[in-house]
């Protein structure tokens, strides 16, 4: 499903503070996998995730998704992929606090094909049911607990039914109990067919994944 070949990413290129983050990194992800990426802080995990998510682009290398070459596509194509083909979940949720849960979950629908508001609502409700917080839809995000916020973010990530879900330390801001719940949710989503890549520091989280990759010196190693 994903094939990355010799991906390189350097920050502040040709300046004194140049940082080579990814150095000829290669990665293959099959459909239906649930992968954890671990590694020391500042090694470039988030950078890799942003490249996979089409938030950022690599300097060199090839990135294929569903046999389509992603590297070098336009801003518009990138935004389409972010909108339709990947769901992104971040540590601090990246929700609009003053909006309701429903409004937040519906935001991706603003940028896709035009659909009726009624259908938008139905789809948002379905996504919220999927993550188990359908009763909260009218609540404002600021009034939610951390776990509820993360569920809202996950609902937003799956509303367009992307094959791929990317999560950058999704449990980093949550307690143990909530972490368990969220991981169960990810496992459930994985079982219904979503491919999931999770970046984490938490060994418990890594354990519940099929495959664990360890990142060091800008490349990935298989964890045995």
């Amino acid at each position: 499903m994903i094939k990355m070949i010799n991906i390189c990413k350097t920050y502040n290129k040709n300046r004194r503070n140049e940082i080579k983050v990814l150095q000829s990194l290669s990665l293959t992800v099959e459909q239906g996998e649930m992968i954890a990426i671990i590694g020391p802080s500042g090694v470039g995990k988030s950078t890799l995730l942003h490249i996979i998510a089409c938030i950022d682009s690599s300097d060199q290398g090839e990135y294929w998704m569903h046999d389509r070459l992603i590297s070098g596509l336009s801003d518009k194509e990138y935004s389409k992929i972010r909108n339709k083909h990947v769901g992104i979940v971040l540590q601090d949720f990246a929700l609009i606090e003053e909006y309701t849960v429903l409004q937040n979950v519906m935001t991706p629908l603003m940028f896709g094909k035009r659909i009726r508001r009624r259908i938008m609502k139905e789809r948002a409700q379905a996504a919220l049911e999927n993550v188990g917080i359908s009763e909260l839809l009218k609540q404002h995000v600021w009034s939610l607990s951390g776990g509820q916020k993360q569920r809202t973010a996950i609902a937003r990530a799956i509303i367009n039914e992307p094959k791929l879900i990317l999560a950058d330390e999704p449990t980093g801001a949550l307690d143990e109990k909530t972490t368990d719940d969220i991981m169960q949710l990810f496992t459930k989503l994985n079982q219904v067919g979503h491919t999931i890549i999770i970046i984490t520091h938490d060994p418990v989280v890594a354990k519940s994944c099929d495959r664990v990759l360890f990142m060091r010196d800008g490349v990935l190693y298989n964890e045995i």
Partner: protein
Amino acid sequence: MACIKIALRFLLKSLILSIIMMMQLSITIILANFLLGKYNALSDVLRITDNFSGYDTYMYMPASFVFNSDSRNDNLEHLLNKYKSEIIFEQSVGGFYQANNGTEYEVYALGDTTSRTLTDSTINGKWYADAECLYVPCVTYQDHDLGDIISLVMDNHVIEFQVVGTVSRRANILKFHAASNKPVLEHMFANNGENSPYSLLLFNQADIPYEFDIIADNSALVYFNTNDDVIREKIIQEFRNIAWFVQLEDARIESEDQFAIHLKTLTPMIVSIFLVGLISMLCLTVLNSIRHMRIVSIYYIVGMSWASHFGSFIIYMLLQIVGVCLLIGTFLFFNKILNIIPMELVMLNESNINITIVITIATIAIALLAQIYMRKKETPVKYIKESW
């Protein structure tokens, strides 16, 4: 579609900031136009003197302001009789009359030489031309067609005028500044200007067969038709003994000086209003884009492209321009009723359109550049990396 929605959300999210931005642009535009309008009105008086450049023209104003053609003082009559062949003395007379159809006219009868010399740019017909016989040719203000007949009862005579020319604005007729001790020129219609409820009607005194005898203007124009410098000096001296008597050219120079003083105070005002406007627009835009950065980044994550992000910003700007137009419209409406900024002696012309365009474009350009700079400096990608 998404762009419009996002633009509206931005507008609503920072409604107060947006309103401040719109108010500040509106105030800049209104004040700049007001000041420029004053400037226009001042400079327009000087423009009219160009007509007289080929004539040996003097301005006369009696030392006492209470003056009527009935009570012309004996000294003046004496001088006029004495120098009948050397000078032409012309005093405009005027009054207010109602036509059959109810329209009220402010009528000015100009002296023969004056009416031929004082040509103003007409939008239709000529400043002064022949009418069909029976009719008195006249020049009117805007809302008349060439050939229209206007009949007025003046001094128990019915006089039928025919419109031979229309002017786009109230004409300037030269006179002294009534309250100045310097020979400064001013508008004849200084007190009611463009907003006068009266329509204007100008004609040549020589075109009606009897002495038209109502209110005479204070000042008069005197044309010399002698080449004898000694006599000329003598006449000037004698006139100066009974009244202010100034060569038109001197009055013009004096007016220009006064005008330059006005300009000296107006220019810094316009420029500083403009600069303050630009700087505050700059700050507000930066503030606004910082405020919006979080939402923009979230939209970016869920699929907004850079292009539609920028598009939404442009629409946001356009919405603000619409807001500015509404604000200015509202202001003009209330200004008519409440007279917040008095519009007398304010002349609006093409330069006002130009300055409005310049201010608007400069402000938009500044906002746009600030926005582009901010977006380059702090892209959603950067924001995402730093924040989440």
